[in-house]
């Protein structure tokens, strides 16, 4: 009896291994599994084991699915929106979304689970935040700092870069993810009232805490900021926005009266002077870049003059 159990266990592990091998090398496993599900009779116990094997093999941020990224982002966004008020102005919100979507369209990751969404926060602090799953926030204070549409596009493209490169998910401590995946693999973790479920919920809280603390308190790792700047230059150039507007924005930050406050953007981002030098070097390496078009600056003025 014991030997039989052992054999069955090994067989399941073996099958799981085969499945996982193909998971990493090819995209047809789904079809294979569906064949497995329809044509053969596998017991619920075997199916359960298979799913658990799959869960247990997840170990890093790269194993977080797009749907999961969306749900993580929702909760991070809910935290941001509990701390900041929304700036209620339909036409400005729409305008910001138009610019944001233009950057998205020319990004490396235009399609994500529920799409990208942009919102203006009713705060005079200069700040911009990007939660996983495409929830992007900019403050009214930041809008005021921009002198044209291209500068605003630079900030939004930088934030789209953070989402596209999954910087939020990368800021989760690996040990927490491993723990969460382990708990998800446990069959009791989702039963209401079970000890594993409450452990799973508190691990999830820690995961969300890692991201919100990064977004609001600590700021992203310096190398992620540099990467997001480089992505912004790339997306802007493709979209037809002048990447020099990113340099203009960084220069405006340097001379901002808020620079010495150490709040918002200044708390969570590396010094704009250092970023400015790197961005200029990135742009210099490009053969040709678009220029700021007057027609865009004019429409920007129409909206910004309505800012209260």
């Amino acid at each position, binding site marked *: 009896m014991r030997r*039989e159990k052992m054999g069955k266990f090994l067989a399941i592990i073996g099958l799981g291994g085969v499945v996982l091998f193909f998971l990493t090398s090819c995209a047809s496993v789904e079809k294979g599994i569906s064949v497995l599900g329809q044509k053969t009779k596998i017991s619920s116990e075997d199916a359960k084991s298979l799913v658990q094997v799959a869960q247990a093999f997840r170990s890093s941020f790269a194993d977080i699915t797009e749907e999961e990224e969306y749900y993580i982002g929702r909760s991070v966004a809910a935290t941001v929106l509990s701390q900041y008020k929304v700036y209620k102005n339909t036409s400005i919100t729409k305008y910001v979304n138009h610019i944001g979507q233009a950057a998205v*369209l020319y990004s490396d990751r235009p*399609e994500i689970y529920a799409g990208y969404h942009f919102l203006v926060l009713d705060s005079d602090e200069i700040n911009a935040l990007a939660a996983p799953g495409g929830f992007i926030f900019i403050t009214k204070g930041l809008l005021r700092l921009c002198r044209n549409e291209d500068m605003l596009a630079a900030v939004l493209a930088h934030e789209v870069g953070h989402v596209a490169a999954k910087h939020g998910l990368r800021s989760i401590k690996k040990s927490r993810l491993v723990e969460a995946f382990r708990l998800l*693999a446990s069959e009791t973790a989702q039963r209401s009232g079970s000890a594993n479920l409450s452990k799973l919920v508190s691990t999830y809280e820690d995961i969300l805490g890692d991201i919100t603390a990064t977004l609001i308190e600590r700021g992203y790792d310096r190398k992620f900021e540099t990467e997001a700047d480089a992505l912004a230059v790339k997306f802007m150039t493709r979209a037809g926005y002048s990447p020099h507007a990113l340099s203009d924005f960084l220069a405006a930050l340097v001379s901002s009266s808020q620079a010495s406050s150490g709040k918002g953007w200044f708390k969570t981002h590396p010094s704009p002077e250092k970023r400015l030098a790197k961005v200029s070097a990135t742009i210099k390496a490009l053969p040709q870049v678009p220029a700021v078009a007057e027609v*865009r600056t004019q429409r920007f003025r129409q909206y910004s003059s309505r800012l209260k």
Partner: protein
Amino acid sequence: MKKKATILISSISLILVSLLLAETLLVKVQTTVLRKSPQFYATVIGSLKYGDQVEKIAEENGWVKVKTADQVEGWLHSSAVETKKIRLLAMNQILKTEASSQEVALAGKGFTKELEKAYREKNKGLNYAAVDKMLRVKVSLAELKKFLQEGKLGEWSEPR
């Protein structure tokens, strides 16, 4: 025991055979559209949703040409589908119907709606209503096209 091994071996063979037939891609975004040509502004010829399976026919500059279950051929942006690595947990959807055991369904869950619900019960002050409102702000492709055109952006940008 022998019977079990036979079933498992035949299952593995079935997987391998199906792998050789064609490359299947899986839609990984909530909704997306099938386009006539590999451009965002191309004519829309169909829509697809999360978990839909399509056969890959060709690939070009970040776009994939696919054939849907209804035999419609069109283009999808590669970021809308799984190309290299398949979603581990999606297999659960299929296993769920086969095994009809709720435990199986739950064991395969990840950070999804159910976990959000449990988290929200513990953290009541969070503003999910504003998040849902944020999600309702949508820009249609037609609107975006007009915005780009008027702003001399994208394909309408001025020659450099």
